[in-house]
């Protein structure tokens, strides 16, 4: 008897993927950079580096610091601007063996809407991710994703500007991520990306100055995985739209933590800097995991470890 192949495909708010793996924005270039090192037909999708309306040179160097099990970055959205991107780079991505997701960033609601509009008009783009959570372009941590009202207005504007699947990327740097997630859903998001980087910094103790040109940056990699898994777990209880879980995923077990917490698909960013074969290996191992449990589809296990939180009263012997 031949066992039917395991189904790794997922649908993320209208974005149909053969594999549940999205290459994190800003971590995979346009995909072309990784083609010599990875089989792009075996990944779910590439999320492009976030683009703004005008070209940006990004932050001063240094932009990267390696930390224990993590990476701090402060790129500052260096990008050629949406017009150049669409004409010179996105137009060249027609032959890519996987879907391309555009990523829109901006400094005003209107700017987000315009960038979304340009991406909407690009046939090579299958969906749009709204990066309202980049920690590296505001001075002291203020981003759209840190405020429920700002989130609502920028998502509404983006929604009006595109009919493509709209994935809103949230920040972990908030007191209550579930509240922001609900606003994004209400304002028209088709899916949520959870999470962007965690704000952090490092100091050069020889030179007595911050190690990043931008002072603060965003922390990614395995160090933040527990933080990101909890964010997904909480957001999954707050919304009904699908979630792309991300933050420190480096192997299939990590990916499963996010899926069992409630993510329909996973984002893989920093792990590509360790080994570009990680995404393909995760797909293979997810298939093995499902097959060995006689499960047919990855979608069957989404959220299966998410049974909420115990109330103080429910906790065993909580008061003595």
């Amino acid at each position, binding site marked *: 008897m031949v066992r039917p192949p395991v189904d790794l495909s997922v649908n993320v708010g209208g974005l149909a993927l053969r594999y549940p793996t999205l290459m994190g924005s*800003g*971590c*995979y*270039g346009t995909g*072309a*950079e*990784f*083609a*010599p*090192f*990875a*089989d*792009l*037909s075996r990944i779910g999708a590439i999320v492009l*580096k976030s683009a703004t309306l005008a*070209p940006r*040179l*990004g932050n001063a*160097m*240094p*932009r*990267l*610091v*390696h930390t*224990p*099990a*993590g*990476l701090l*970055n402060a*790129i500052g959205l*260096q990008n*050629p*601007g949406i017009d*150049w991107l669409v004409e*010179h780079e996105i137009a060249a991505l027609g*032959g*890519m*063996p996987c879907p391309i997701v555009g990523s829109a960033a901006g400094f005003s609601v209107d700017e987000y809407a315009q960038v979304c509009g340009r991406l909407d008009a690009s046939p090579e783009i299958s969906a749009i991710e709204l990066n309202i959570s980049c920690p590296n372009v505001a001075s002291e941590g203020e981003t759209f994703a840190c405020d429920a009202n700002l989130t609502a207005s920028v998502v509404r504007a983006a929604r009006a500007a595109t009919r493509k699947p709209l994935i809103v990327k949230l920040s972990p740097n908030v007191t209550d991520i579930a509240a922001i997630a609900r606003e994004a859903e209400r304002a028209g998001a088709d899916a949520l990306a959870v999470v962007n980087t965690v704000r952090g910094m490092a100091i050069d103790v020889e030179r007595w100055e911050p190690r990043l040109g931008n002072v603060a940056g965003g922390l990614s*990699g*395995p*160090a933040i995985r527990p933080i990101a898994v909890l964010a997904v777990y909480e957001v999954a209880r707050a919304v009904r739209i699908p979630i792309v879980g991300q933050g420190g995923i*480096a192997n299939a077990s990590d990916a499963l933590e996010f899926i069992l917490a409630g993510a329909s698909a996973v984002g893989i960013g*920093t*792990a*590509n*800097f*360790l*080994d*570009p*074969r990680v995404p393909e290996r995760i797909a293979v191992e997810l298939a093995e995991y499902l097959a060995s449990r006689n499960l047919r589809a990855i979608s069957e296990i989404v959220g299966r470890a998410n049974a909420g939180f115990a109330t103080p009263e429910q906790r065993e012997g909580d008061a003595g």
Partner: protein
Amino acid sequence: MAVSASRVHETRVVARIEATAGVVVLRMQAPELAAIARPGQFVMAIPPGEASAAVALGLYDADAESVSLLFFVAGKRTKVLAALRPGEPLVLLGPLGNGFDLRDAPKDVAIVAGGVGIASVLLAALELLRAGARVRLFYGARTARLLVERERFASAGCEIVLATDDGTAGLRGFVTDALASAHMPALILACGPTPMLRATATIAASANVPAQLALEETFACGVGGCWGCVVPLVQESAQAPHFPKTRDGIVRARICAEGPVFSASELRW
């Protein structure tokens, strides 16, 4: 769009030498990589275990069957690489970067190397020597002990000028001081810390000698995907043709993708 992972090399360590305490030379069986590696290019080495990023290392040496890496144990990831023993596997991505441009190279070349920079210049020296050039190596380090692999360069035919911060070998002071007071070559290649490269560029400019500088920065991807390793170039730079024109005349190019070797005259210090 090519989809074959053609630049992933699953190599095996065949020799490990400790050049001095904390400096390791690893030789790997890697014929395909060796066949295409050019001087000044680098690889991303994947430390076995649970590191969070691969390590950028220059291609130090190569023969038909193998490539060698030379590295200083700087932090966690190079510590893991230093623990590798003959027989153990090591995955290398590459070759990466542009490398030195040695086409039509003149017959009198100075190579300036500081610290770990020594790891990125041997292949260039060998190619130039093979082409019949005179190659002078200006080599600086903190102290004599860290001036590794001198014998390898000398036996290949390089003339060597040394400098150390503490005067324990060669000139006491900067290697670029030695360069400045030497007979000027027709081409300068350099790899080392930024202040050394800057001084080299100044010397080259005032002597009107072309200089190719191999830059080093903290990398994440090493393949042009993250924009974490940029350097400002003059706007008209030939090395960054694919960027839009910017208001203030700066182009920020990726060291890993457009470099790591830049013509000194294209850099905007």
